[in-house]
């Protein structure tokens, strides 16, 4: 690590203060702020989820005699006695269910690790012991695991989504044919799992007819409505508590089977029930990043100007529920292409349903585009940084919609300066130190700026304190901190005197914590609440913060309460109602009238051992521009985490699947490798100031999913630069370089 590494950077132009996290003290003292740790009334019973050991087939018999005989066992639920649960819709149909198949819906087994029974006992040990004794017989069928396996079925996205249209912008075929340089390559990305350190848990109890759930969630209002639908009670009678989430990355947005199972068991037993999916069960419980195959053809003229771009992708998904990410429309907006053609497909097999995982569409598709960009730059003999600058665009070439702001070139310059890119000898294999081959690579990073509706209740008090309440979520992003900063800066209140409550469905609704929408959406609603306070105080909207603070101190009432509301421009008012009903409404990115993205640029140094070919990343730099930065401290940590995720994605992370049995074999975090501390050397982050007054109230762009996009392309290019070998199949493991 560089000696001058600064974990908490100073503010620059258009950035807020790097204040410490609202909950920092709680997090370093082990306070009870996570769902599973919250107290419950009375001693809970412990549930163990029994999951299928086969991927396809049918349960033919269940014998629970021996399991019931284990001392302390209170309840065993299977498809035979689960009774009638409500039905939820999946994302594709406007709901939040992870899968079309309901909890314990029947004897059919659709994937490995499908919950097939729930055992509840007085102790965790008794419940687990009983799981050994529950005899389940299956009629097993031969499953389809992944691409290339017998039984895999392909569909074009248009076949499953009538609204989907592939891009046909000018004649890509002709443009490619007339190019001076072209590349034609296939790229592969692996199955990956979120693996937040906090396990998937649900604690449920009933107070009369009211259900209380403690469940780590990226959308407590959505979970409240979903649980109500499943348990067939009024949503007003369900409360979800999830004050802080121990990491999510997309895995705690969907509603999984465990919620209803815990709620049902708690109801039948009349006591709190705690259900924790174990780490291995987590691999089949709440989705994953699906594997992809992508074919890219890209051309440029003799001056390096991009011509034609043809990108086709195949995502592997579940037979029951064809979840997909798509995303090639975003790739098509990135550079000044003359002509673009895209086609997207899903391939289905006997697998659990994928879900969104940090930059779901962007990680695989931008990897392929950026890897192709690097390959084409090399082919054309142009420096890859210069190549991207040549092809910068101010509009989405496909529909002509202008970018509200785009600072890719500034980011490229900033990172090149920080990294020392000018010292790069472009010839592969030209740098080494001792037994280690050295290579440098770069890529662009991007993420669409997205937003959703939000509310925020704000109470300001004569004594100078304030309270913000919104059912938004903090998955480690700093949402509490930023909400307090947004109100504090607008009203002239010391953020230390602002109490923030989030992660509770009893609070006014906030958006799903997904698509990096929280900061933009929540701060916009908080700003609206502040404006309402100003109005209540009888001040003009241009009153200074000092005047605002003085007016609050002189209030006639002890406190004023308002409910702020915000709906992104262009979204109908029905979007707000949809959120109140637990639905998800997100807008942004590629729009008809404007194009909204955050950008970054990344550079890495890799070292490859000459003999044994281990690949290490001693150095990674990133420069990012994302509008107004609320808090450089939390932003820096988000970028840091993103870059390291990018390293993991390129070199470490892959879920291995048994082709014969369609089962994940490294379903633990000893062998599903994520980077450890020793993998990470020098990391340097440059925050490039950017102003965007058009995009939302505070001019902020979401950054949580920006920095891990593109990194794998920078790393594969650096590996090529070190060794002369192009690897197009992630993760890059050393055997590919032997």
């Amino acid at each position, binding site marked *: 690590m560089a000696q001058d590494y600064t974990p908490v950077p100073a503010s620059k132009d258009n950035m807020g203060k790097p204040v410490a996290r609202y909950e920092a003290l709680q997090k370093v003292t082990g306070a009870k702020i996570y769902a599973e740790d919250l107290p419950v009334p009375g001693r809970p019973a412990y549930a163990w989820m029994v999951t299928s*050991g086969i991927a396809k087939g049918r349960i033919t018999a269940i014998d629970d005699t021996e399991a019931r005989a284990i001392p302390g066992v209170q309840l065993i639920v299977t498809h035979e006695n689960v009774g009638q649960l409500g039905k939820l819709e999946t994302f594709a149909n406007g709901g939040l269910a992870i899968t079309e198949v309901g909890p314990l819906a029947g004897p059919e087994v659709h994937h490995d690790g499908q919950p097939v029974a729930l055992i509840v006992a007085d102790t965790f040990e008794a419940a687990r012991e009983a799981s050994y004794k529950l005899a389940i017989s299956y009629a097993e069928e031969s499953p389809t695991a992944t691409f290339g396996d017998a039984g895999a079925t392909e569909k074009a996205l248009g076949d499953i989504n009538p609204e989907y249209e592939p891009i046909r912008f000018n004649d890509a075929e002709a443009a490619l044919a007339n190019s001076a340089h072209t590349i034609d390559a296939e790229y592969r990305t692996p199955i990956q799992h979120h693996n937040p350190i906090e396990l998937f848990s649900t604690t449920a109890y009933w107070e009369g007819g009211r259900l209380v759930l403690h469940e780590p969630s990226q959308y407590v209002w959505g979970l409240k409505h979903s649980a109500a639908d499943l348990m067939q009670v009024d949503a007003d009678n369900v409360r979800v508590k999830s004050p802080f989430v121990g990491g999510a990355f997309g895995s705690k947005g969907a509603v999984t089977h465990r919620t209803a199972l815990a709620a049902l068991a708690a109801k039948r037993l009349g006591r709190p029930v705690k259900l924790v999916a174990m780490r291995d069960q987590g691999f089949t419980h709440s989705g994953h990043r699906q594997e992809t195959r992508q074919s890219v053809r890209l051309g440029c003229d003799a001056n390096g100007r991009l011509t034609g771009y043809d990108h086709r992708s195949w995502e592997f998904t579940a037979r029951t529920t064809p979840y997909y990410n798509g995303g090639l429309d975003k790739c098509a907006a990135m550079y000044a292409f003359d002509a673009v053609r895209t086609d997207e497909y899903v391939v289905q097999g006997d697998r659990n349903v994928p879900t969104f995982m940090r930059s779901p569409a962007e990680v695989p598709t931008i990897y392929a585009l950026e890897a192709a960009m690097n390959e084409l730059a090399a082919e054309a003999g142009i420096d890859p940084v210069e190549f991207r600058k040549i092809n910068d665009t101010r509009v989405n070439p496909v529909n002509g919609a202008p970018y509200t702001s785009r600072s890719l070139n500034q980011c490229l310059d900033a990172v090149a300066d920080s990294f020392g890119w000018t010292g790069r000898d472009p010839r592969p294999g030209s740098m080494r130190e001792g037994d280690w081959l050295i290579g440098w690579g770069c890529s662009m990073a991007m993420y669409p700026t997205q937003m959703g509706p939000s509310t925020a209740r704000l109470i300001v008090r004569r004594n100078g304190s304030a309270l913000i309440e919104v059912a938004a979520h903090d998955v480690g992003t700093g949402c509490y901190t930023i909400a307090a900063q947004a109100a504090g800066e607008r009203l002239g209140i010391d953020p230390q005197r602002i109490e923030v409550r989030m992660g509770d469905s009893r609070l006014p609704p906030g958006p799903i914590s997904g698509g990096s929408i929280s900061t933009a959406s929540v701060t916009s609603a908080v700003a609206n609440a502040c404006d309402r306070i100003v109005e209540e105080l009888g001040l003009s909207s241009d009153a200074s913060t000092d005047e605002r603070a003085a007016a609050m101190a002189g209030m006639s009432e002890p406190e004023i309460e308002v409910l702020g509301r915000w709906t992104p421009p262009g979204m109908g008012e029905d979007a707000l109602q949809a959120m109140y009903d637990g639905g998800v409404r997100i807008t942004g990115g590629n729009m008809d009238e404007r194009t909204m993205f955050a950008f970054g640029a990344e550079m890495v140094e890799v070292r490859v051992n000459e003999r044994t070919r281990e690949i290490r990343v001693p150095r990674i730099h990133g420069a990012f521009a994302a509008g107004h930065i609320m808090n450089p401290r939390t932003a820096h940590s988000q970028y840091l985490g993103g870059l390291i995720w990018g390293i993991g994605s390129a*070199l470490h992370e892959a879920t291995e699947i048994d082709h014969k*049995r369609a089962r994940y074999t490294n379903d633990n975090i000893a062998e599903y490798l994520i*980077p*450890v501390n020793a993998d990470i050397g020098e990391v340097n982050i440059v925050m490039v100031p950017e102003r965007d007054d058009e995009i939302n109230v505070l001019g902020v762009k979401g950054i949580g999913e920006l920095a891990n996009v593109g990194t794998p392309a920078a790393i594969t290019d650096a590996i090529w630069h070190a060794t002369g070998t192009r690897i197009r199949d992630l993760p890059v*493991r050393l055997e590919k370089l032997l």
Partner: protein
Amino acid sequence: MRPFYYERAETAVGAVASSGPGTHYLAGGTTMVDLMKLDVQRPTRLVDISGLEGGRYDFIRWDGDALRIGALTTMAKLADDEQVRRRAPVLSDALWLAASPQIRNMARISGNVLQRTRCPYFRDTSYAQCNKRVPGSGCAALDGGVTRHHAVLGTSDQCIATYPGDFAQALIALDAVVEILSPDGPRSVRFADMHVLPGGKPDRETMLKEGDLIVAFSIEDAAFPRSKYLKVRDRESYAYALASAATALRMEGDTVADVRLGLGGVATVPWRAKEAEASLRGGPLDESALERAAQIAFAGATTTEENAFKVDLGKRTMVRALLETARMEG
């Protein structure tokens, strides 16, 4: 976990005398408790030996060039021992490159050498086929399974599960002897003889018998300042070896006077490459000699499509380790 009786033994004699069917010793617990949670290990009685006789089996003693280490010494203590680091770095390296600081604080070296394979089909009881776990049930790995991590040396048609440890390679390279207290009395065996090849009985991993308690390891000639452990893995730390090599070297001028070679990550048991050693003894340590030795070491390899790279990687690891060892002072 299934229910079990828990007892603490005060003395080694008492522990051994209390052995019986279903009884296992428990020290650090890092393998036993892990596998009990997976229902792979099902002891009916655990005898906790971690506190035997106030630390009587927790020692590191040199007597000239001979080294004797108590079986209940933690991995961390041995890894950090200043004299061991200096006089036999291969022992220290093989420990600190293994597992994590927490695990090394807990695990005792006797338990460490007995750790079980990471083969996913062994560790997950929902797989019907595993000859090691359920004798005669078949081998899921060989029947279309994922085998990137599996062994290429010492395999059989019944089992290709990799021995996952590191320290054992160092012990085998240095001709360690295991001191065992058994119900019939004390005995010693060569460490190289303790683990047994899977053959037709992969469920039997060592020659230890019911009640056998490892009390110490001894190495008659442990003074190898020119020795090291090279571990090649997918991430920089806290990962199992794809291939590893424990090396110890004595040179007379440019001639190899003595060389020791233990190979890890590639074999079903701790692996000593004796024939490769013999090919190097008395000659120069140059690329062609090393290449020849590597060919010899892996001559008997059997591979699957996914783990075939381990032959090449294993050779490269061995050559690199020996070259780096040759560069050491000593």
